[in-house]
């Protein structure tokens, strides 16, 4: 007997059909992985279960009873709690205040804090009830979200890409908690793009494609290849190519780089490394370890306190980038494609259409006071064709596109300017497996063309498969530079949390 049955669920947004006649069963004591490409309607489906959206058609049964969930409050009433990809927390409130938000009754913070501590000790969470959210790390925030759902007595938990922002160690901790909840008889639904997590954690997988329900199967009876084929609808290969670097020459040489943030905190501390042409240099680290500052320093957007960043051109001539403006640096062929957490914040303007966004790179070209609108339009069309961007047209505002397509537009534009150095951060953040591979392929093509690629990533497995060398950052310091072909995942994971990787520091 399923705990929840969804039958014939349909939801449309304007002309876009996000879900079409989806049937889904959810069982207690089971971890269900919900799979699908970006824009296949996974989050929309779960939002309807948690009362954020209301289905246009279809029925939802909880146990025997047919229910209508029209608000998050009602969803809580049925024991359904969702942990959203973008945390729903109020930054200036404390953990306790966030957890009891929306509950009725008299405000009694100490009593609530006590109950929170009890939940934490049951499941082994580490949360300080009085801490403000803005002082917390990403994984602490996520823990608060989970505690919030448990505090309300939810027994059906939905997690939307919970591991996208966690280190391998934090992910392990989360999985341990989820397994414990499964043993407690809770129903858990997890949305993720990482196949190895699906295989490791889930009992059953359900696949959506273009808003339609394709099917479900037991995880133990399937494999990553089969699941991916179901998601995409055709056979795809799951190997990231890693050609050997051809004729690598130093392109960017960073020595003793130190950067302080506006409020005086050291963001980068004595960072030194070299990026070669025809090579992908990975940057690994917990988010906020200085990746953003590093890329910005190279692109000329950060003030450097000390150290030097040199750019060596084809002929071997040296240019000092520290002190240069972003425009001059871009003129040398150094291109930054940074995909921030909200994907749009840096690089693209959400309300502008595709071709206008292309123009952001080229509007200075030419002497006439009028901008050239033709070539950006052509470029936009080309990017849409080459990268298979799903869009109604090139006059669609970028913010209307789904996340994966936004990223393709951004990466496509940066690559189109034929850079000699490509800085990319979180290029596949939140992308489904198929689009991710498209992006890896794009990056590899640049590498083969002799571009020095600096790739900041969050998925260690991918970094280890894609990069030639990996610089591991920890708290703004380089805790080691490893070879991507021989490095060990656990060791890199440790280096991310401790400079030099703890006890192995002596031999590194």
């Amino acid at each position, binding site marked *: 007997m399923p705990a929840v049955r969804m039958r014939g669920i349909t939801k449309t947004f304007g002309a876009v059909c996000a879900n079409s006649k989806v049937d889904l069963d959810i069982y207690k004591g089971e971890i269900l992985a919900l799979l699908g490409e970006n824009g296949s309607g996974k989050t929309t489906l779960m939002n309807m279960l948690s009362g954020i959206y209301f289905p246009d058609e279809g029925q939802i049964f909880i146990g025997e009873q047919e229910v209508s969930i029209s608000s998050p*409050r009602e969803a809580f009433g049925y024991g359904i709690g*969702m942990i959203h990809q973008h945390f729903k927390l109020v*930054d200036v409130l404390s953990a306790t205040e966030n957890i009891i938000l*929306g509950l009725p009754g008299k405000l009694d913070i100490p009593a609530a804090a006590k109950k929170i501590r009890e939940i934490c000790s049951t499941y082994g969470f580490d949360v300080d009830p009085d801490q403000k959210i803005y002082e917390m790390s990403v994984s602490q925030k996520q823990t608060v979200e989970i505690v919030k759902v448990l505090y309300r007595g939810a027994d059906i938990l939905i997690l939307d890409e919970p591991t996208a922002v966690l280190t391998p160690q934090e992910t392990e901790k989360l999985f341990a908690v989820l397994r414990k909840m499964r043993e407690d008889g809770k129903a858990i639904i997890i949305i993720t793009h990482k196949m190895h997590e699906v295989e490791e954690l889930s009992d059953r997988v359900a696949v959506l494609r273009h808003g339609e329900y394709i099917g479900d199967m037991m995880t133990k009876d399937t494999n990553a290849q089969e699941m991916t084929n179901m998601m995409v609808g055709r056979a795809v290969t799951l190997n990231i190519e890693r050609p050997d670097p051809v004729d690598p020459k130093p392109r960017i040489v960073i020595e003793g780089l130190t950067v302080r943030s506006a409020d005086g905190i050291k963001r980068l501390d004595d960072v030194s490394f070299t990026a070669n042409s025809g090579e992908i240099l990975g940057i690994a680290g917990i988010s906020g370890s200085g990746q953003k500052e590093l890329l910005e320093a190279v692109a000329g957007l950060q003030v450097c306190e000390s150290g030097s960043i040199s750019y060596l051109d084809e002929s071997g001539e040296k240019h000092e980038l520290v002190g240069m403006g972003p425009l001059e640096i871009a003129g040398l062929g150094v291109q930054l494609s940074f995909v921030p957490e909200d994907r749009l914040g840096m690089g693209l303007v959400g309300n502008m259409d595709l071709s206008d966004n292309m123009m952001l790179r080229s509007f200075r070209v030419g002497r006439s006071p009028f901008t050239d609108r033709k070539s950006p339009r052509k470029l936009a069309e080309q990017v849409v064709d080459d990268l298979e961007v799903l869009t109604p047209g090139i006059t669609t505002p970028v913010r209307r596109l789904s996340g994966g397509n936004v990223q393709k537009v951004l990466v496509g534009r940066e690559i189109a300017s034929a850079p000699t150095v490509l800085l990319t951060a979180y290029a596949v953040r939140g992308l489904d497996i198929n689009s991710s591979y498209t992006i890896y392929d794009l990056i590899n093509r640049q590498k083969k063309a002799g571009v020095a690629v600096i790739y900041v990533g969050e998925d260690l497995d991918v970094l280890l498969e894609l990069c030639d060398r990996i610089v591991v950052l920890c708290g703004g310091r380089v805790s080691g530079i490893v070879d991507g072909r021989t490095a060990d995942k656990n060791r890199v994971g440790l280096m991310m949390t401790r400079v030099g990787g703890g006890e192995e520091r002596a031999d590194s």
Partner: protein
Amino acid sequence: MLNFTAFIPRAVAQGMPLLYGSTGETITQKAGNLNLGIPGVMYVGAISGVIGSFLYERSVVASAALNPALAVGIPLLSCLFGSLVMGLIYCFLTVTLRANQNVTGLAMTTFGVGFGNFFGGSLIKLTGADVPSITLSRTSNVFRTVLPFANSTGWFGKVFLSYGFLAYLGILIALIAAHVLKRTRTGLHLRAVGESPATADAAGINITGYKYAATCLGCMIAGLGGLYYVMDYMNGVWSNDAFGDRGWLAIALVIFTIWRPDVGIFASILFGGLYILYLFLPTGENLSVKELYKMLPYIVTIIVLIFTSIRNKRENQPPASLGLAYFREER
């Protein structure tokens, strides 16, 4: 030397409209609505009260005494009603129709001032007076009834007891507002709505309800500030445009008090004091110095804005979604 027993009562009287305005605006802003219509709302509150008391005074023969309950109740209710209507219009436009809050607010101010001057002018015509003002001194006397010991307790009575009931009500409302915002679940929910409506929504809080309630309540409180100005501070004299820029100062006070109504009590009296300081400082022969003193509240506002912007503590920042409309199904 400043004569404090004379200065402080004047400063309080000058500060009260600001306190009402800023308490109302603080509650509104905590729900994420930036209501720049507050000056207009205070105007409408004032003229509504004036209309109510005008009609009541005309219905009672000149020689007879007014019934105190009606003399207070009628203007009070008409003031609250007028401000509430303004609040409902603002909410309907910005919350239900998701219109731009800045534009709506500015339009409300223009509308409110025009509304006040139109009806003010009409009433002045009706009375057929020679001066361009209406005097409602009988109502005003009821409003300005002071506590019995005010005159017999020397300086203490002058400083603390010499005000009409609206002044004490304003302080009481500010204290209650501070308590509710900080210590109750309603306050917690309201703050969450202003900080992150999506979060509050996911937590099952009725966003539209909170925004409407907070904004309308805020408008009604602000409207009382207008009523206080006419009935108490001006001794019942309405003349067009006399209220001046107090509404804008009230909005500036919200930032000055870092969104805390209890701080607003002291801040509004301080501002009231700065407003009239020129009357108490020796200026000598040169009258233009007075004009410079009149700038004080504005200069202080600018300085305070600079300091609150530098002091980057997260708790002291405006509500994060201030000025933004919320739509649940936006993608």
